[in-house]
């Protein structure tokens, strides 16, 4: 197991008298890796980068489709609206891109599903 050794960013939730879970810091933001906040920042950067790649790919797709009809300029790129079919194709490409970027997380989950030692550590014991 390759686990962070720091405690989770919250205590176990208890409901208050009104039935609410209001945790300190909820409004101001916090990280999931309090001992290593760079991990939170890196994940945020990777997530943002996939967004930038997605936009580049959409722009390139627009260029390719417009190029099929000859001359076009920046204004025609800006004004281009994909058809429903084209949008569905783009979103399928985007899913594939996202799956490639976040593959290590999915792989680790698949591994956990077969990792009986880690599973044993997660089930706890009778108090």
């Amino acid at each position, binding site marked *: *197991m*390759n*686990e*962070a050794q720091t405690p*989770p960013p*919250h205590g*176990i*939730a208890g*409901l208050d*008298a*009104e*039935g*609410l*879970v*209001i*945790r300190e810091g*909820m*409004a101001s933001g916090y*990280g*999931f*890796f309090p001992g290593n906040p760079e*991990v*939170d920042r890196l*994940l*945020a950067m990777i*997530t*943002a980068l*996939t*967004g930038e790649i*997605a*936009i580049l790919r*959409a*722009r390139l797709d*627009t260029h390719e489709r417009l190029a099929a009809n000859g001359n076009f300029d920046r204004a025609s790129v*800006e*004004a281009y*609206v994909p058809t429903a079919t084209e*949008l569905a194709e*783009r*979103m399928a490409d*985007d*899913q594939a891109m*996202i*799956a490639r970027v*976040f593959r290590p*997380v*999915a792989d*680790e*989950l*698949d591994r*956990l*599903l077969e990792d009986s030692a*880690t*599973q*044993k550590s*997660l*089930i*706890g*014991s*009778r108090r």
Partner: protein
Amino acid sequence: MTRPHDMMPEATHDEAARFAHVVGLKSYLMRQLEPKWRALVDDRLAPQMSAEGLDANTEYRDLERRLSQLGTYRTWQALTVEAQHEMWRSVGECVDRQLPALQQRAAAQTAGSVRTDAAFSAPRYLSAIDIHRMPGGYVADRGEGDLRQGAIFDKAAALYHMGRNGGELNDVRGHTLIQHYFDRFPGRTPQRILDMGCTVGHSTVAVAKYFPQAEVHGIDVGGALLRYARARSAALGTNIHYSQQNAEATDFPDASFDLVVSSAVLHETSFKALPRIMRECHRLLRPGGVMMHLEVPLRFDVASAWNRVRGLFEALHNNEPFWIGAQQADIAGAVREAGFSDVQADYQPAVPKADPAATPRFTATPGPVHVVWYLLSGVKS
């Protein structure tokens, strides 16, 4: 994409691409990664716990604490939160770029009315934190004429529901409420209708269109939401009256309405507020009047261990403080205590359009969110 109404913010080529990607990212996290966590918890851990004499359903909090020690679980949590931040950031930038144009378009819409109150104070369960992590929450308001929060909420809600609530109109819940009304009370035509916790009027407009002769009101806690709601409703051809009020104690006279509804509002209140809202609904209805509340169809008693762990994530990290409380609350009991009769609380299948001739499909069988909604109704005798 064609805009569904004149108030919807316009998206540039790149903004539209970014929105599609945010939906794709949320979809990947929910449909590709989350099922693996569900399989781990419900299919692997729960049976092993059971063999050890432990019950994963009752020990879900300890289970969540142990899962949170896994770097992979924290990564999934961090990515899910980051996808939500990306949604609010991308929509916020899009709205801010065109705020003056939106205000002009709102001024050109004349139907309906809006009454805000600068001295209004929202209840703690809505003001203490930003629900859904929406910066500023429901209450942020820059004052007279401001509609920024409403425009952001409208555009983001379509992304948030990922097309499962009626696309950019986000009105399936309104249609589903009225299907329930047609099923239970055929032939009735309410003259005065109130929608509590209406935000930008997604359900209010849908409800209003079934009863064009009715006077329709919507209340919410956010002034900027309501100013946008008024303009949006007008752009969609309805004439709705919005006011900034607390559903626990409104300023409408007794017996003001024939029908009082809400859509996915109760899980954003509190144990104290729930009975107060039910009593207020009772006060506001005329004898024979109908109250209907549509809610998230996740009840704790039928939730798997993963559903409960996922509920903790929603409560703690998507800033839904009453998420778990609401699923355990005896809402139907509060309704009966408030004096309602003919109380029903079950699942209403979601419909894109209500049909008075449809065969009633109200059912005791739970189903997934957006496929069915928990629907609670009662009559003031």
